[in-house]
Every structure is written in structure tokens, then in C-alpha cells.
């Protein structure tokens, strides 16, 4: 609690009380879990001074994935992965549930549209992010592993595209999946086995649909979340690279980096009253 040289005014007292009310739950959480410090450590990292907007493509891809996850969860509330024929209309149940989402459910057309177009956005952003990393040389030592993890995320994203394409259960979905599975089937030795596993039997059937649905909404998203966690961990651990034209990165001997535990603002508290000016005075630590 700050001490005042003079008697605090009513406004100042009120502000102080409000601050305490806001801080109390945060302090409570921090004391018991260290989560506040963890979040601060994750969000307020030091980055090179000459980074630019292209370095936000990774976050953009992450946002696209979150949009896919949220809209997917909502779609799953209305979608029925059944190849059975509705006796009243003679149409497949899965396809009817898609029509219901698009035509009847409030804003269903919007959520389905977000999921459908967002899928492409996710893949495109991953490719752009990959191109940025490649052109900046950000895949080089010590970040090779993170490139590999990124490629796995891209692969999983494409598997999401492949499994999600079948779910509307219309002619496009059916024949695209026929061709896609048969492409897998032409791989040497294990190809035919892989194709039969994907189909859940010799022919595409209702089992293929439920299998793809399970892969699409449970297995692959789980794998993507795990891989993204690993990807971010490595980003935080290894830091962000400067662009290739960076003068800071090119010029002279690199400055001795101060151990993280001594830097203000991460785990050591910023000196009270100094605030942002103290951080500006010592970029990247003490000189």
C-alpha cells in the first residue's frame, strides 16, 4: 500500500480501494498457482526491436484454428453423422442435418460458413507463416525442431480438411473421399491396408462417415492442440528471430544477454513508480 505525504483525498482513497478489489483475486490466484506470473511471462516477452507485421502470421494461424475449434463445437451440436436414410424424406440424415444448420438454425448459415471458409483461411495462413519462416531463415539452428513441429501441424490441418470434406455427405463429399482414399490405397505395400482402415471396410459406408467424424472432431484436433502447445513452448524458449535485413542482428558482437531471472518485468517485479520508463531505459536488461 502506497503511503501519502499528505492526507489522501476521497478520490485517491476510492481509487486505492478499487485497485485492491481488482487485485485481490489476482493476488489470490498468483499466490496459489503462479498463473498470473506465467501468463505475464508468456505475453510480455522481449522481442527484437526490428520485427514487423509478418511475424504475426503465426498468431493469425492460431486465431484461425481457434475459430475452427469454436465453430466446430457449435456445429457438432446440430450435426448428425448418420448415413441412414430419413424414412420421411428419403434423404440421408447427415445431409439433412447440414441443410437444417444452413436453413433453419438461427445464424447457422454464418457459423457453418465461418467453419467452411475458415478451414481454407487456416491452411493459407499456415502456408504464409511457413513462407515467412523460410524466407527469414527462422528455421535454422536452434529452431529446426520447431520447423518440424510446424510441418506436423500443417499435415494435421490437411487431414482435418480431408476428413471434414466427407461430412456434408453429398455427391462432392462422397466422390472426393472415394478418390482420396484410393490415392492412399496406391501407396506401396501398406497402401491397401491404410485405405481399408480409412474406409472401415471394403467399401465406403456409414462407418466411414462416423470414423471420419470422430477423427475430424476428436483425434486430429487433439493432436493439433498438443502440437501447437509444443510449438509455442519452443517459440517462448528460443525467442523470436530478427528479420534478415536486421542491422541489430548483423552488427558487431552480440550483447551479453542478462539471465532472465534478473530482468525486470518478468519474474522480478518492476521497481515501483518507475513503471514503463525503467523498461525503456534498459532494453533487454541492464547495459
Amino acid at each position, binding site marked *: 500500500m502506497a503511503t501519502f505525504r499528505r492526507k489522501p483525498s476521497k478520490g485517491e482513497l476510492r481509487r486505492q480501494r478499487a485497485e485492491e478489489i481488482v487485485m485481490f483475486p489476482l493476488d489470490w490466484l498468483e499466490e496459489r498457482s503462479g498463473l498470473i506470473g506465467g501468463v505475464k511471462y508468456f505475453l510480455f516477452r522481449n522481442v*527484437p526491436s526490428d520485427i514487423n507485421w509478418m511475424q504475426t502470421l503465426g498468431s493469425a494461424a492460431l486465431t484461425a484454428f481457434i475459430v475452427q475449434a469454436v465453430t466446430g463445437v457449435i456445429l457438432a451440436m446440430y450435426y448428425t453423422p448418420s448415413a441412414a436414410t430419413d424414412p420421411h424424406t428419403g434423404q440421408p440424415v447427415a445431409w439433412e442435418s447440414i441443410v437444417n444448420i444452413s436453413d433453419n438454425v438461427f445464424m447457422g448459415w454464418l457459423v457453418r460458413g465461418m467453419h467452411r471458409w475458415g478451414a481454407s483461411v487456416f491452411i493459407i495462413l499456415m502456408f504464409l507463416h511457413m513462407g515467412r519462416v523460410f524466407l527469414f531463415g527462422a528455421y535454422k539452428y536452434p529452431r529446426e525442431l520447431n520447423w518440424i513441429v510446424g510441418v506436423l501441424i500443417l499435415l494435421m490441418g490437411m487431414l482435418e480438411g480431408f476428413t471434414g470434406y466427407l461430412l456434408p455427405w453429398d455427391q462432392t463429399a462422397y466422390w472426393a473421399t472415394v478418390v482420396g482414399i484410393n490415392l492412399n490405397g496406391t501407396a506401396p505395400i501398406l497402401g491397401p*491396408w491404410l485405405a481399408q482402415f480409412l474406409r472401415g471396410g471394403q*467399401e465406403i459406408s456409414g462407418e466411414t462417415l462416423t470414423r471420419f467424424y470422430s477423427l475430424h472432431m476428436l483425434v486430429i484436433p487433439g493432436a493439433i492442440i498438443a502440437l501447437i502447445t509444443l510449438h509455442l513452448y519452443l517459440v517462448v524458449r528460443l*525467442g*523470436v528471430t530478427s528479420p534478415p535485413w536486421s542491422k541489430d542482428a548483423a552488427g558487431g558482437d552480440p550483447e551479453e*544477454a542478462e539471465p532472465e531471472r534478473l530482468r525486470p518485468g518478468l519474474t522480478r517485479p518492476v521497481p515501483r513508480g518507475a513503471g514503463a520508463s525503467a523498461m525503456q531505459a534498459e532494453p533487454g536488461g541492464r547495459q
Partner: protein
Amino acid sequence: MEPEQPGRDTEQEPLHEEAHLPGPSLYPIGFAIGIVVLLVGLVIDPLLISSIGAAIAIVFGFLWAREATREMRAEQVVVEPERRELPGAGEPAAEEPGFAPPPVEPTKVTRSVFLEGSTIGLGALIGGLITVPVAGFAVLPSFLDQKQHKVDMGPLETFALNQWYISTFTVDPAEGEVSRRTAFIRNNGFVADPQTKQQVPSFTIISNHCVHLGCPVQANGPTAQILNMKILHEQTANGKLTLDPVVPAGYGCPCHGGQYDPEGNRIAGPPVRALDRYSYEINHGRLVLLSTYSVSHVVGTGAQAKIYKYKDYGPGQHVDGPEAWFYPIPPPHH
């Protein structure tokens, strides 16, 4: 500049622990082979092959366990009370007669190492016990009990002599529309069976699944509307059956342009063999379709055709020539 490099002032403390790696052993390989034979046996012959696999796995697993625990069994593990040597505290007790502790041989397997190993081992065992049935459940149903469907195509008289029909039918009524298939059927009339010398009906029944990647091939030629013939709609044991008369000059695939002649031989495009055919039987005067089989090529036409027949392979998979070596073990079919 790498701003977030780990601090260079923190020195790595040298590790004093030495890894106690077991000596090289061939038993785990034998154990793994046993498990593989067991799993393959589940597909091929659960009784015989699986038992052999289980036996191999048990024998090698036992040998492996014996080898891994050789050191533990060779030495008597003496449980020793924990002691700490106090610095500078001399050894007065040992000097006194009668109080000398019995000499204890140093043991490699300490209590903590044993507990660590047993925790990891038990965890792995429990994990395995859960994973094996789940993985089996996820994978095996695709390969076991593939049903043989019989498709009733109605009485033989429906099919006019030497007329091609585009026939669509449901393979499994319980499965519904997704099991609807198309085949090109021609009645070749009666021919002499080479063995019994009896006159038996002959049919050419070609599947419409393109052997490039499985798209539906179309008959290139006039159909009922142009031929001024009627499309036949029938109800059979398998539900709705449609027979659309056609005069095909060949078959073409809309996806990637594969072309076939009327007997299904590939004449152009990416397909790797001739179109698959249905085997059939005649049951009480009705045509019944059975499983499909693959065909490398056909010489001749109709009842006189010599069909080079293979097991059922998927689209894009070669059945003859060196490329067929890529597909040595096809998955189980009905």
C-alpha cells in the same frame, strides 16, 4: 542477436549419475515377432497362427524377463538401514568388540532404483493393458468379417440376348443408398460348359468403378431415350433395380479421362488394368451377383472372352507386371 538465448553464465553442473544400461539382447526382438505373429494371426487364423504367436511371445518374454533380472536374482538384496556418515565423527563403534556390524556387500539395485523401475514398469503394463484392446478395436473391425453380399438381379429373361444394360442396384438394403452400385451387364446367351458339356447361361458383368481412383465410369453410347427403348424398373430381394439399355462403344471416366473398350480393357488414360468384374451365379432362374474380382486384360469378347482374372485389388493397384510387387499382401476381402 538472439535475445532469449539461455544465459551463458549458468554453468552446467556435471552429472554424476551413470546410466546402468542393460547389455544387448535379442530376446525383445523375438518377443516383438511373437506379438506381430499374434496380431497377424487374429486376421488370418485366430486359432492356429495366433496361438503360435502367443507361444513365441510368452517364451521370449520369459527369457527376456529372466535376462533383465539376472543381476537382481544373482545377488541377494540385503535391505540395509539407511545411514549417514557424520563429517569428522570418527568410527568409535567399529573399534569396540562385539559391535562390529556384519559386512554388507554393496548392491546395485537400491531401494529407490527398484521403486522407480517398478513404478514405470507398472505404469507401462497398465497403459499397455488399456491400449492393446482399444487399438485392436480401432483397427481390426475394418479387416475382420467382411461380408459376402449376394445381389438378386431378377429373372434371366429380363436381360435381352446380347443387349448391354446399365444396371443400378443396392448391395446391402440395410446399408441403404450408400451401397448403391452400378454394373454394365450383357446376356451372352447359353454356352457349353467346358467340363460338364451342359448348356449354361453366360453373362458379362463389368463394374463401373474406374481402376484409376474409383470414380464412376460412364458408357459411351446411346441409352434408352435415343435407342427408343424402355428403362426397366424392378423390385428384387435387394430393393430397387434399374436396367437402362445402352450400346456402349466403350467406357469413359469423367474424373481423369480413363478410357476402356466394351470388354473393359484399358485403351487410354491413367487406369492401370482392365475394369473389375462381378462373379455371378444362377439361382432358381435368377441372376445373382457375388463379389468382384480384378482383371488385368481380356482377350476376345462375350462368352468366348478369355479373362485374366486376379483377386480383388483396389483402384490404382497393379495386378501384373513388376508394379504388382508393390502390393504383395492385399487386405482380407470377402
